């Protein structure tokens, strides 16, 4: 193992959507600021955008205002959002969209040069190469250095102030000690907590990137950062087997959700994101499954466009259509709910941040799927938050000096790594413990197996078993640094599982069907539960903090106690 020490002004952890845009913004705002991106993969094709995306889901179309977007997202989350975060994001959606176009993203325009809109909030694009476009810009920035294949495993925090982070070079056997004046965390959400739809050979054919393992959440939790709304899990409604997105069929081609009797069932349950999942689950329970998106009878032109659109973002669905010989015009597309994810770009889980995207740890800012309180961000919202976090971080740097990381902290990390890569004492492999964790979450914390439902007794069992697995993970063994990363990823996920369980247990109501379906409290309770469920880890235990909702229309929020 090599040890390398680095020093920078601004460390960005995760060179995905938000991270790349944060680097671009910080670099343009201050060319004297040294910026370092640490990315576990390679920024050219990492994170959510690797395969491409099919639309820009968050845009303020003509005749609408940022406030309309806030209202929409708030309604979809049944009130548990932060207006200030949604508003500051919404204000920037169109500016970042124009910037993306300047950088080379193809956006559909009409004969008058205006963007063609899909529904009330979406733009049609060719998003196949959106990540290479962003990466190419970042690589040209003079004051930005990118370290690819460096996986960050921990923050260095002293007296609630961040001083940098520790990482492992997964292909060069290097331990990195990185000191920084400010840090932006942009590691995305967490996949792989629950048993996936297809746990066998295709276990990673999931919707959310299986390589986003929630490091950002876990590191924050461990260091006592306040987190919010982890009980609002995200379950995606997806094409069966390929887990490809359904928006292109539903909003794009206007396909309705139908059950096996051919009845359109969506109106029966409501049209919010969680209600659409719940309706599908319920139709199956009541014997009217499977459920489909009704595509039969679409025109040949529509079909051709759909085949292409899917190749630009989820190629397996097009392959599926072609190899099965059943094209969408001939057969409706079966849909199913995925396993639950924790993802703050769709729901509201993540760091509890102020309006400037500062977390409760001084010097640590959060953007994108890792940041909470601001659902329905999608690509453009992640860019907008990257921008806000970068501006705040650069301001912070001008007033602060680089913290220093203590020798004892370094030694503790080195000896932990040496233990994992040393003599093999483990009876279990990382893979086995990962499967065990997913089985526990599936059975006792509202996974696919229980139709996403749970009760308090089950959560107690889940918590007990996740703690046991955490203990077992102490003895795991890695043959190389990639396997070492797998150990850290598993331990991150176990930490997040504990937080999810604590949050699910804390909210004594069912506000969002499927996302948090608490069988002990099956009704919504507006009198007692129009509240944020937040948490902080103290002495190894997750402590729940209930906070009152901010004021309607409130434009700024500052951290207090």
């Amino acid at each position, binding site marked *: 193992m090599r040890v390398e020490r680095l020093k920078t002004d601004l460390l960005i952890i995760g060179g995905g959507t938000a991270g790349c845009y944060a680097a671009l913004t910080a670099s343009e705002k201050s060319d004297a600021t040294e910026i370092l991106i640490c990315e576990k993969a390679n920024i050219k094709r990492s994170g959510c955008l690797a395969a491409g995306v099919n639309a820009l889901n968050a845009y303020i179309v003509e005749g609408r205002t940022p406030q309309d977007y806030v209202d929409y997202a708030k309604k979809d989350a049944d009130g548990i959002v932060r207006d200030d975060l949604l508003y500051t994001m919404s204000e920037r959606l169109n500016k970042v969209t124009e910037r993306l176009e300047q950088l080379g993203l193809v956006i559909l325009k009409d004969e008058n040069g205006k963007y063609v809109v899909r529904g009330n909030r979406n733009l049609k694009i*060719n998003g196949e190469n959106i990540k290479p476009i962003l990466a190419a810009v970042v690589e040209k920035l003079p004051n930005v250095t990118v370290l690819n294949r460096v996986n960050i495993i921990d923050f260095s925090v002293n007296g609630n102030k961040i001083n940098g982070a520790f990482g492992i070079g997964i292909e060069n056997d290097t331990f990195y000690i990185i000191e920084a004046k400010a840090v932006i965390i942009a590691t995305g959400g967490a996949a792989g907590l629950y048993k996936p739809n297809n746990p066998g050979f295709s276990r*990673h054919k999931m919707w959310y990137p299986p390589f986003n393992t929630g490091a950002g959440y876990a590191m924050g939790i461990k260091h006592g950062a306040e987190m919010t709304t982890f009980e609002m899990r995200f379950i995606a409604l997806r094409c069966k*087997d390929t887990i490809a997105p359904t928006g292109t069929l539903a909003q794009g081609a206007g396909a309705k959700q139908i059950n096996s009797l051919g009845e359109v069932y969506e109106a029966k349950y409501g049209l919010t994101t969680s209600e659409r999942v719940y309706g599908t689950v319920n139709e199956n329970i009541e014997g009217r499954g499977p459920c489909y998106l009704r595509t039969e009878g679409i025109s040949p032109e529509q079909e051709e*466009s759909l085949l292409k659109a899917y190749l630009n973002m989820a190629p397996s669905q097009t392959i599926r259509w072609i*190899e099965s010989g059943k094209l969408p015009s001939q057969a409706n597309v079966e849909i199913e709910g995925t396993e639950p994810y924790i993802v703050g770009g769709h729901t509201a889980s993540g760091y509890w941040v102020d309006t400037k995207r500062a977390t409760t740890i001084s010097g640590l800012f959060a953007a994108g799927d890792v940041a909470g309180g601001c659902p329905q961000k999608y690509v453009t919202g992640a860019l907008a938050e990257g921008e806000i976090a970068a501006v705040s971080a650069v301001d912070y740097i001008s007033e602060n000096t680089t913290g220093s990381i203590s020798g004892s902290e370094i030694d503790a990390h080195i000896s932990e790594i040496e233990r994992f890569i040393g003599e093999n004492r483990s009876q279990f492999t990382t893979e086995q413990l990962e499967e065990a964790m997913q089985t526990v979450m599936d059975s006792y914390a509202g996974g696919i197996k229980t139709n996403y439902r749970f009760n308090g007794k089950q959560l107690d069992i889940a918590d007990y078993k996740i703690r046991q697995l955490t203990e077992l993970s102490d003895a795991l063994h890695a043959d190389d640094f990639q396997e070492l990363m797998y150990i850290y990823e598993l331990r991150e996920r176990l930490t997040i599982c504990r937080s999810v369980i604590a949050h699910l247990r804390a909210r004594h109501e069912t506000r969002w069907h499927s996302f948090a379906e608490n069988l002990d409290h099956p009704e919504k309770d507006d009198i007692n539960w129009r509240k944020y469920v937040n948490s902080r880890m103290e002495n190894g235990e997750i402590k729940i903090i209930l906070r009152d909702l901010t004021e309607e229309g409130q434009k700024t929020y500052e951290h207090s106690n």
Partner: protein
Amino acid sequence: MSIAIDRNKCVGCGRCHEVCPGTLIKLGADKKAYIKYPKDCWGCTSCIKECPVYAISFYLGADIGGMGSKVHTEKKDGLLCWVIEQPDGKTAEIAIDPKESNKY
């Protein structure tokens, strides 16, 4: 789903190894690429689009209804061309103009 790399075609340029978001592809001592963790492939097709000699193809696992077709991409006259070879020998090709937006 996962990918397969044709050793005979691979020229060892390393681009697939460089780009994979899961760090799943390695180069052997003979400089040929191989997928070390086939079950961990997300199916993002990043590696396939990078390969200059079309040595990489992807397929759907049988557990998600795969029927043995193999897919790769080729770049022709500025188009991104998807080639789907079916087990019965039939081949389907879909060419996409990167300058053209999705219609839906």
